[in-house]
């Protein structure tokens, strides 16, 4: 703190201090919390914790700006009382942040060089409070035993805490039983989970919390309240949670927002570090997300689509892929038609909802979209329209906002161009075809261009599965990529295609393998030429 001002000088007043009413409010709260120990008081305390933290932060800033403790005591006469009471409130002292703020405020009242009796007394009081907080023993028997058995206080308190946690775990482990009054014992568990809200981030409580999360759901009583799950989720996002794997998975199971949180942070880490597809796979596998049952997380998705989409291509014979995708494509088309029909009467939210859920599910199961592209490309004379439609739907799910129909037309055009370029019939490459393709892909001022990822997907797949020689295929790809500037996208699609083919051991034909190698060589060359 800055040098003290003698009291005879007028105090420099700036903006009004913290609202007197606010101070009174918190003081009343602190008194009320200290007097009762009922579940209601506990609940009230928990509800006010984040507001209290904000208040303490404000207080800290305000007191910091004052020039001396004497001034502070004059302007905030009830500050000492408030802080003193809050120090003995375990809900305040249990959380690192609020404890830190509280102690910070206390230290602001400490004077390195006390200039009068008030400041000296304040110093003494602060030291006393802190000493009592950490070393005072209320339990006489505990004190006597510690002295006579040689067990230090820290060890004793840790033992008692662990014992309490163990006893509560026994409670939680009990299955639901009905009492005489027909109220089941789950009420006690609810109380436990509520009580754990302020201590979700404490490592000592983690075993209890894990047990609460993994307790089998036995009866109607909702044991884990929203507040409890919210507290866990926010602690998780601050990386303040120390839960074992299974418990974490259970948390995701109970709370969709916590799963969202986990997915978003995973995506964020991917985006910021720029991982290659291989590393991404590793990262995802390492995160627990793959170990959870996806079905449990998509209750809104149309059930008829759920299993077909969740089934991996590797889980069914290759020959069945075509029919499978035909069916998927037509089901999704039907959904979009329903949505568009419903658009007219204004009760169309259900339709939109369905399309969204189906599209969202498709995005989670994008492996089928990749297969669709592969089948489209290797279709030959058979009808590849459903596959193209699926690809378009993936990128442009609606007409109203994404202009799916017009994009489909554009895609068909691009597809024609690509096919021709890779047919081998033309040599050298027809520049008009090439130009048209490039035009379709490049961003235009008036119209929507075709998503690069879509075109590149088609392009690379055709390059891999066409009938051209490896060098021939590479030549065409190079020309297109060169002119359209889609080098990075092409590299990405190629490596993920290779990964998928390797995994599914669909690499039956050496020619495909050779082509891939040649294409990779070309791209690498282009990369180094470009830099």
């Amino acid at each position, binding site marked *: 703190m800055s040098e003290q001002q003698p009291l005879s000088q007028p105090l420099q007043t700036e903006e009004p201090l913290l609202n007197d009413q606010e101070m009174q409010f918190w003081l009343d709260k602190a008194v009320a919390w200290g007097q009762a120990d009922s579940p209601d008081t506990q609940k009230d305390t928990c509800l006010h914790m984040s507001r209290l933290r904000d208040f303490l932060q404000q207080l800290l800033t305000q007191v910091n700006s004052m020039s001396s403790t004497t001034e502070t005591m004059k302007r905030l006469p009830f500050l000492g009382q408030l802080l003193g009471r809050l120090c003995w409130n*375990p809900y305040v002292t249990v959380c690192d942040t609020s404890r830190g703020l509280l102690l910070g405020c206390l230290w602001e009242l400490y004077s390195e060089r006390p200039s009068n009796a008030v400041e000296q007394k304040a110093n003494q009081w602060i*030291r006393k409070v802190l000493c009592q907080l950490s070393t005072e023993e209320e339990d*006489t028997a505990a004190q*006597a035993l*510690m*002295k006579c058995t040689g067990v230090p206080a820290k060890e004793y308190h840790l033992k008692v805490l662990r014992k309490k946690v163990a006893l509560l775990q026994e409670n939680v482990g009990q299955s639901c039983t009905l009492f005489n009054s027909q109220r089941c014992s789950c009420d006690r568990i609810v109380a436990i989970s509520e009580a754990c809200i302020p201590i979700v981030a404490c490592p000592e409580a983690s075993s209890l919390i894990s047990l609460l999360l993994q307790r089998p759901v036995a009866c109607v009583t909702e044991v884990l309240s929203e507040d409890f799950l919210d507290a866990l989720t926010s602690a998780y996002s601050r990386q303040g949670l120390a839960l074992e794997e299974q418990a974490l998975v259970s948390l995701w199971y109970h709370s969709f927002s916590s799963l969202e949180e986990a997915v978003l942070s995973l995506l964020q880490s991917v985006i910021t570090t720029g991982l290659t597809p291989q590393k991404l796979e590793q990262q995802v596998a390492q995160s627990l997300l793959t170990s959870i049952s996806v079905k449990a997380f998509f209750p809104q998705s149309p059930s008829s689509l759920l299993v077909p989409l969740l089934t991996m291509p590797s889980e069914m014979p290759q020959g069945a892929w075509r029919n499978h995708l035909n069916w998927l494509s037509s089901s999704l088309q039907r959904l979009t038609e329903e949505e568009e029909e419903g658009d007219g009467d204004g009760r169309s939210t259900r339709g939109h909802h369905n399309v969204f859920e189906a599209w969202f599910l498709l995005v989670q199961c994008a492996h089928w979209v990749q297969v669709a592209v592969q089948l489209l490309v290797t279709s030959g004379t058979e009808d590849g329209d459903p596959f193209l439609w699926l690809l378009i739907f993936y990128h442009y799910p609606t007409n109203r906002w994404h202009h799916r129909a017009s994009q489909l037309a554009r895609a068909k055009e691009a597809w024609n161009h690509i096919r021709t370029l890779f047919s081998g019939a033309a040599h050298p490459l027809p520049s008009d075809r090439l130009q048209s393709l490039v035009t379709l892909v490049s961003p235009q001022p008036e119209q929507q261009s075709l998503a690069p990822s879509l075109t590149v997907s088609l392009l690379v797949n055709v390059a891999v599965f066409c009938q051209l020689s490896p060098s021939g295929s590479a030549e065409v790809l190079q020309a297109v990529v060169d002119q359209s500037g889609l080098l990075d996208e092409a590299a990405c699609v190629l490596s993920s295609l290779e990964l998928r083919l390797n995994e599914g051991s669909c690499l039956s034909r050496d020619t495909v393998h050779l082509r891939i190698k040649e294409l990779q060589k070309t791209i690498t060359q282009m990369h180094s030429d470009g830099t």
Partner: protein
Amino acid sequence: MEAMLKNLASTVEMLAVAAQSDAVKHWDKQTLSRAFHWARYCEHVFSRFHNNAAIRRIMEKQLQLTNQTLRDTIPGYTEVSFSDLPRCQHLLLVRLLNNPELPSSLMKMLFDTARPVKTMHGEYEDVTGLCSHIVQCKSVYKVLSPLADMSALGADAEVQGEMLMERLEALLNQGSETCRAEHFLGSVLQGCEGALQQFCVVIAAALLTSKNCAAQTAAHDFLLDWLQKNHSLLQHMCSLLSPTLLRDLAKEHQKFRDAFCNVLKKWASEMEYSLNDSEWVLTSTGPTVSFKKLTELFLALFEASPSLKGGVEKELNALKISDGDFDVTGLSVWGDLLSALNT
């Protein structure tokens, strides 16, 4: 050995400095860490040698010398005994926090919410946040303690009972020096002066620990014998503890059951009928127990041991008969007791 004794003496001197000297004013983070390091050293030395009678004696002698010197030079000096050594860090902390000369910067460090830094090789362990952690631990317990759990005694009483038993078992294990075990129990009792009920709860918790091993059975036995020798304490236990707890104790230990039964009979025999209150009142010195309570306790006893019930009722009946066998209230405590028990 010499080095160890020297270190021991130095640490005790350091504790004295920490408690009262304003030399503490000049301590910094390093000094503090070093102080705790040496306190930890003493704890370690204790755990290593406390079972070695010869070395223990030497260390005690050293402590005696050091204490003497310090007593002579420092007014109000608090001695450090051998049995204090395992709590050396705690003693240091208490002394420091009570010393007004401890720099506020060091206090702030002890209460910092930050976690201690990992110690580099050759450095003393960081004590940042030491007090903060203690406060947090206590707070977590306070948050959880109102919740109902499976224990009849409570987590703290259970732990205290376990601590008592552990020490008792260790003392009894060391040989035939039962006087040390008795001394231990005596000092705990003394330490609980003014909190007799708490002490009784601890004894109950100790008797209800269930490790099912020979050492524990022996310790339980010893404790029960000690209780019986301490007759007034036994009476206090029977009057202060809840009937449920007493029932559990009687169920677990026959010795207790018998002692309990004897206490109840003794109380009944010492009761007199008060015409003013129209009820039986215990007039002797010792705990006050109402007739109603006495009845409850008898019922608890019978619940613990149904086989005992018949025998006791027979006894009560015989006593009633010797009192004249009247069925009028207020004439025979035995008769009134019998009728109260059978309603």
